[in-house]
């Protein structure tokens, strides 16, 4: 968050983050999208629930961004508006041994929490947010080299990933036979952890894994606005390019050698 905000202020940034539910009985939980498996928050939510109930006493759902901001959507005159609630004080603790702040994971290990967080995508070194109301928006920040390296190693064809509110970068990779060290990790997991992973694998054919850490938050570049008039200089530059661009001349079959039509991904449906 870049500016001082108070509970009830309009949230001016992109709406993203781990999705939780809360009730008028002051309970907070995370649940799977389709089979309704619920993971209850044991601690860390006292202030958040008080602030949430001020806005919506009947309960509902909210999100926590990778910057630790608690946000919610409120409806007014049939229009849903993102609203800032408060900042997260401390990491949540969960029932059923669900561990969202693990200490000793290595890149490529199975993720020990539930698969959620602020969703971004990457291809090569470019990272973007997929705006549901618009086109992708590239991010301003640069993710740490180690994170991008692991992403290239573990997910070389690109795709989406998540950043949790506790700064963990996680992603989904095609399901595969587990190597021995991951078999050991799997056997050491609780039944609920295994249920979460199994549900994810069954619904997406993909396995959630840990990639690395990132704590700095994400800001977005504005989308390209084609309706904004070009300056005379921009127009001239584009027209000159059309006249004099140096085509590669080299083709590989039907493809110019440096063509860069990028593909889009759909490897992480809402869970």
């Amino acid at each position, binding site marked *: 968050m870049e500016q001082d905000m108070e509970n009830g202020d309009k949230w001016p940034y992109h709406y993203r983050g781990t999705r939780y539910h809360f009730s008028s009985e002051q309970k907070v939980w995370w649940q799977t999208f389709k089979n309704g498996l619920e993971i209850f928050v044991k601690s860390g939510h006292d202030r958040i629930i008080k602030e949430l109930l001020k806005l919506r006493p009947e309960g509902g759902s909210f999100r926590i961004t990778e910057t630790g901001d608690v946000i919610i959507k409120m409806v007014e005159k049939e229009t849903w508006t993102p609203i800032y609630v408060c900042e997260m004080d401390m990491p949540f603790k969960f029932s059923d041994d669900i561990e969202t702040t693990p200490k000793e994971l290595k890149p490529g290990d199975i993720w020990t929490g539930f698969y959620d967080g602020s969703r971004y995508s990457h291809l090569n070194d470019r990272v973007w947010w997929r705006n549901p109301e*618009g*086109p992708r928006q590239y991010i301003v920040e640069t993710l740490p080299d180690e994170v991008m390296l692991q992403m290239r190693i573990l997910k070389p064809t690109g795709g989406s990933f998540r950043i949790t509110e506790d700064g963990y970068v996680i992603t989904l990779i095609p399901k595969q036979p587990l190597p021995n060290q991951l078999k050991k990790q799997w056997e050491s997991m609780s039944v609920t952890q295994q249920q979460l992973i199994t549900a994810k694998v069954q619904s997406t054919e993909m396995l959630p894994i840990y990639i690395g850490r990132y704590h700095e938050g994400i800001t977005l570049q504005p989308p390209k606005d*084609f309706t904004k008039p*070009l300056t005379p200089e921009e*127009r001239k530059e584009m027209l000159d390019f059309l006249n004099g661009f140096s085509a590669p001349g080299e*083709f590989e079959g039907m493809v110019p050698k*440096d063509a860069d*039509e990028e593909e889009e991904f*759909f490897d992480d449906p809402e869970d």
Partner: protein
Amino acid sequence: MASILDEPTSIPAVDEKLVTVNPGDVWPLPYRGSRYTVKKVDDRLKVCWTRLDVKHDASSLPERLIKAMGTHKGDQRGRFMVTPHGEVIARREIRDGFWQSVYLGKLDGVLDFLGFELDPSGLKTGNLWPGLHFIHGEEFAVWNRAGNQDYLYWTRRGLYFRAIERYPDICAEVRKIRPRCGRIYITENGHIWMNLPRSEVSRSFQAEFFTLLDEDKKKLSDGKHDILLRSIYDRVSATGCYPVYLGEISDFDSGVAPRTHFLAGTHFGVGGEDVYDGDDFGGKSWRKMKRDY
């Protein structure tokens, strides 16, 4: 204003037998064509065209599109495609993670995007294409290799397919302009445009092409065509090729857009909502599609 007609279409299915497909029926042919999306923008549903960090909103919603999406796709929002035959197709999730292609109806009319002309008139062969410049039109390749027999080809997962009929007129026109051949795109309004690298314009077409290019550049420089100029610039930057108008499908060969013939039941549309039954622009199979003898 465009609309979606609630009417059946006739397609060649397995073994080239003609079958009738009604709105709501499974779409058994490849999931290919021009790609659009219905998004909620400023609390209103709009038809959008998107690629990377670019989005264009259609000026109006085709009548009955939202109803057809809701009824047959099960979601008023999301992707849909339009074939060169005007068939509107989409993807619906029939159980967790399992999607299939569905036919919604026929597009009647033209989608209207500020700055673009999707159904231009008066264009000459060789003009820059004034429609959308990515994922607009079903993609085919014209070959000059021996044995191509004037078929149009496309590729999916490394396999090569060809259209049922031969298109000698289209192939001849492409070869006249670009002797080494390449890819063409056939849009839902029956227009054909092609990729033309500057280095591969035929000698016989060079004078005509560069005269037309000068005319187009003059039009694009007037400050009223900045959207189109940006889009053409993006296309040329990304592909190294000019997007060049070829003509209307009705003026070539049988006058009917291509269909693809399958010898046996081929499973198309395997994957999620965003599947495309063709390999990526820069995919390996397109790279292996050698143009020379």
